[in-house]
């Protein structure tokens, strides 16, 4: 489904700020895999997702998604295959556009845009149904500007937008980190619901070890631009937070002491 081979990225090469963010990542995901990604700050989790999404050009390696080599495609061209939800609720939606207009943009992801009307009546009916599933009361507010919504509502809407047109791969980059615990739980519940009902292949970065163990069928841990731990199935289900902490200490040593993963 998704195969990363020797994917590398160094930022600010040749300067004092040089930072090797990814050091030859190899990763293979099967269709329907729901993989949680954990690791400390600067471990390369977000960079890995951004490299898959095409935000930065690759330094080395290849990314193959569903048989297509997307390594050299631009960000907007890759969007045809990907659904993305960002950490910042402001980044995933257009604040000055209406809820239905945002959904209409999402419904056209990866399709060529023409001079046909930007949103049709039939679409609006469908959006009412889809929004009702979120259970946030958004189905009656179709023509409200998205800027009026709360962070949690925006994040739930972004999740719906990312999956409105079935993506080959769903990328969730700490998409609940900016939300209060109650809202975060709601968005995670929606995430599980959508991912399992659509059978989506998913990569979810999280700082919460409990969520990382509880959700999905596979867990990978990153440190210093490498994947240091990869566990799936029964073995993953049997994990405890202490196991992950130990694993992390082994790999990262000293660095771990002051990492905010301790708090997760």
């Amino acid at each position, binding site marked *: 489904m998704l195969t990363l081979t020797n994917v590398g990225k160094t930022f600010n090469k040749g300067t004092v700020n040089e930072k090797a963010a990814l050091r030859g990542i190899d990763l293979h995901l099967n269709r329907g895999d729901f993989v949680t990604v954990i690791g400390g700050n600067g471990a390369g989790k977000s960079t890995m997702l951004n490299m898959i*999404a095409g935000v930065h050009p690759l330094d080395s390696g290849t990314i193959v998604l569903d048989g297509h080599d997307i390594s050299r495609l*631009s*960000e*907007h*061209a890759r*969007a*045809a295959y*990907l659904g*993305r939800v*960002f950490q910042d609720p*402001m*980044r*995933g*939606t*257009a*604040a*000055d*556009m209406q809820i239905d*207009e945002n959904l*209409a*943009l*999402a419904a*056209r*992801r*990866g*399709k060529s*845009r*023409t*001079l*046909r*009307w*930007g*949103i049709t009546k039939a679409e609006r009916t469908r959006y009412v149904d889809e929004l009702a599933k979120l259970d946030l009361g958004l189905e009656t507010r179709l023509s409200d500007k998205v800027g009026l919504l709360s962070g949690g509502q925006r994040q739930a809407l972004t999740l719906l*937008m990312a999956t409105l047109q079935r993506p080959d791969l769903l990328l969730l980059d700490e998409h609940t980190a900016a939300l209060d615990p109650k809202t975060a739980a709601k968005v995670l519940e929606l995430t599980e619901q959508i991912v399992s009902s659509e059978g989506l292949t998913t990569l979810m970065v999280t700082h919460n070890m409990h969520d990382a163990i509880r959700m999905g069928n596979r867990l990978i841990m990153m440190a210093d631009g490498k994947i240091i731990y990869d566990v799936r199935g029964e073995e993953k289900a049997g994990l405890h937070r202490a196991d992950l902490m130990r694993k992390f200490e082994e790999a990262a040593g000293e660095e771990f002491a002051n990492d905010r993963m301790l708090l997760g």
Partner: protein
Amino acid sequence: MTLALLGAVSQGILWGIMVLGVYITYKLLDIADLTCDGSLALGGCVCAVLIVEHGINPWLALLAGTVAGMLAGAVTDVLHTVFDIPAILAGILTQISLWSINLRIMGKSNIPLLKHETIFSEITVASGLPQTTVVVLGLVFATICVGALYWFFGTEIGSALRATGNNEDMSRAMGIDTRATKMIALMLSNGLVGLAGALICQSQKYADIGMGTGAIIIGLAAIVIGEVLGRLTPGKLRSFSSRLVAAVVGSVVYFLIRAIVLQMGMDANDMKLLSAAIVAIALAVPVVWERQQLRASYRKGGEA
């Protein structure tokens, strides 16, 4: 006085077409595109040269002025999106080069059209009403432009363009090629500015190298005035079409204010200072007001 005011209205309507162009970049794309000073003069110069030196039909000359403006917009876009030059600087670079280019096109600093047919003189011959021709024809053009923009920004491509101005990250994640949408926006915007330049040239019967100087400020002032008028109107005109109309109305009001203060004896050269002051005040007032509100809402004890 009435004649002066009628003149101001007709000027305001023609400049209103330029304001629509500025609206696209400033309000929808969130870029202050300084190309427009140059592309307005470019539209006028191209139009005048074609009519006077090449005997081209004035309607075709309008079209040529529009296309010339679009090309100027394309140059700014390439500087901005391909070479990553900040949008303001890219606009300034194009604007400055257009000064020289416009002089090359005309071969001198102004061209009078006195003895030549224009679209306005053609219609006047038919109607016999010289004063109102510019107003009526200007309104026809402005209405067509507002209608066309309203339609375009409702289409899939137009929506993608609005999304680009709103949130570029999100737009790319939605598969929108933001380079392409910016190119369309800048070409469309400067095409309208070029069209306005050509229309202004034909209505005032000359093209001048300095005719576009300060156009961006007039555009911003008109947009700001239009927004204030929109807010003061009962029912608060929020729809996209009414905001476009408000931009044109803002332009008419701007030129009416200008005509009135000039009649009252203000030096014409001070007009640019007044325009800048209008824009600066209109942008500053909401900021100061909000800060004042925040300060006023402070309670020492903490109870809200």
